[in-house]
């Protein structure tokens, strides 16, 4: 869907981008969209941090080719958005629990969205970034800066987590692996990342091993109960 960039704020390594979609594109927290920009043939997956009406907000880490080009976008530029894709958090998690939300870097985006829509399911939030750079563009009371705190967000959570707490985590595969190990006795849902092709489950490009066979992160996930997935191949 043709979409208009309406506002863009950048730091060296981060972007917050607001876009207006042509029609309303309702996104549940945890779902994602495929974004494409001029000069690229294949789109890439991003989870919005917010969506209301035709407005959608993204929090993007500048890590490679497309995200570097995104940094150069200006209000008035057009981008292509396809979605919503993937399963909403709410359809997979146990709704009778309250969650500690743990975001790893831009993995925080869908969790911030989740908190907005389902505040009653959230017990605590912690959005981890390595340096304070993000504060130049993102205001949120629950930012955790590793370099300031002297520890990772997982370490911090360890300090206050209670026996029957549940976790909803989103971040890089390594971050999620670490969390799975550290919190192996807890109910923990993780939103997984993988390089994607189609985003709709048909190309078999984004596999994850689960107890019931190989699943596609884009279609069967991105959220999984971590006890059901095997993150090593």
């Amino acid at each position, binding site marked *: 869907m043709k979409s208009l960039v309406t506002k863009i704020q950048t730091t060296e390594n981060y972007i917050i981008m607001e876009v207006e979609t042509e029609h309303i594109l309702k996104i549940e927290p945890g779902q994602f969209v495929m974004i494409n920009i001029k000069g690229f043939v*294949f789109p890439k997956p991003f989870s919005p941090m917010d969506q209301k009406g035709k407005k959608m907000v993204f929090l993007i880490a500048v890590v490679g080719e497309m995200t570097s080009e995104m940094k150069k976008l200006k209000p008035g530029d057009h981008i292509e958005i396809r979605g919503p894709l993937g399963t909403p958090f709410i359809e997979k998690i146990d709704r009778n629990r309250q969650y500690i939300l743990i975001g790893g870097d831009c993995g925080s985006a869908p969790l911030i969205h989740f908190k907005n829509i389902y505040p009653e399911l959230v017990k605590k939030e912690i959005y981890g970034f390595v340096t304070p750079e993000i504060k130049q563009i993102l205001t949120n009371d629950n930012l955790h800066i590793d370099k300031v705190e002297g520890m990772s967000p997982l370490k911090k959570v360890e300090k206050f987590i209670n026996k029957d707490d549940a976790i909803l985590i989103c971040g890089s595969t390594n971050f999620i692996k670490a969390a799975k190990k550290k919190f192996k006795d807890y109910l923990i849902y993780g939103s997984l990342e993988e*390089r994607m092709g*189609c985003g*709709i489950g048909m*190309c078999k490009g984004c*596999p994850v091993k689960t107890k019931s066979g190989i699943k596609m992160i884009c279609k069967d996930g991105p959220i999984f109960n971590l006890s059901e997935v095997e993150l090593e191949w």
Partner: protein
Amino acid sequence: MVNILGFTFKNPVIIASGPGGNGKELSNYIDLNRLGGFTAKTVTLKERPGNPPPRIVNVKAGIINSIGLQNPGIDKFIKEDLPFLESLNTNIILSIGGDTKSEYLSLIERLNDSKAVFFELNLSCPNVSKHNTNLEHDSDAIYELVKEAKKISKKPIFIKLGSNLFLEKIVKRAIDAGVDGVSLINSSKGLKVDIKKKRLILKRGIGGFSGPAIKPIALAAIFNIKRKFKHLPIIGMGGIFDYKDALEFIMIGANLIAIGSGVMADPEIPIKIAHDLENYFKNDSYEKTIGCALEGFYDR
């Protein structure tokens, strides 16, 4: 309407094997019955888990995949995928892959009575090791395979090949063995290095390179075959993303054109192409357009 080997296609646009899966997901986005046909994802005798991730690497004007023929195996395919495909009101092509000749033959036997119009023998998957659906280095083996496949098959047989130096020779042998058509081209071998991590991105190093970047290579391969074997039916593919790309393939000699990575970039591409080609062929004969760019070609 396209006629090929006695079958009628609504239009020349079909889905290539792989990127579109077995149609269920894609059918949530587009009406597959609007297309000329659908090629199922290559199926093997036994289930294959596919390659470890990452399986997708983005490169300039293309994508490198390392799916590794993940598929449920023939039993599950027949139970869970074939009925859906057979329920479609479009022509189905079944792509099969094997480690040995007898695996291909078993697959043909298992699928001989399906509603599919053609078999496509995948001989050129870049994502599996030698002898695994990767016979193209061996034209004798291809000759033998096609010859025996033709004996038992109730459907016309296409072989799917990549672009390679000995394509003409291979196709010549396959024709001698009775092949009905060729599908050109499979994804090419491609690689990308992660220079930050100083390592190969794909665990196998090499993957299958597809998308707009390979279009000139696909067209060159089809040109070489078409000018030697004028009457051999060709399914053309490789970087077809709009109707202009499709026209290049038709004018160079493709009877049908298949969309692979295009459906990954945007699932609606096949419908757009079918629509735009319909408009284009209001004024022009499809039959006469096939291979028209070769007329008067000055070969030296």
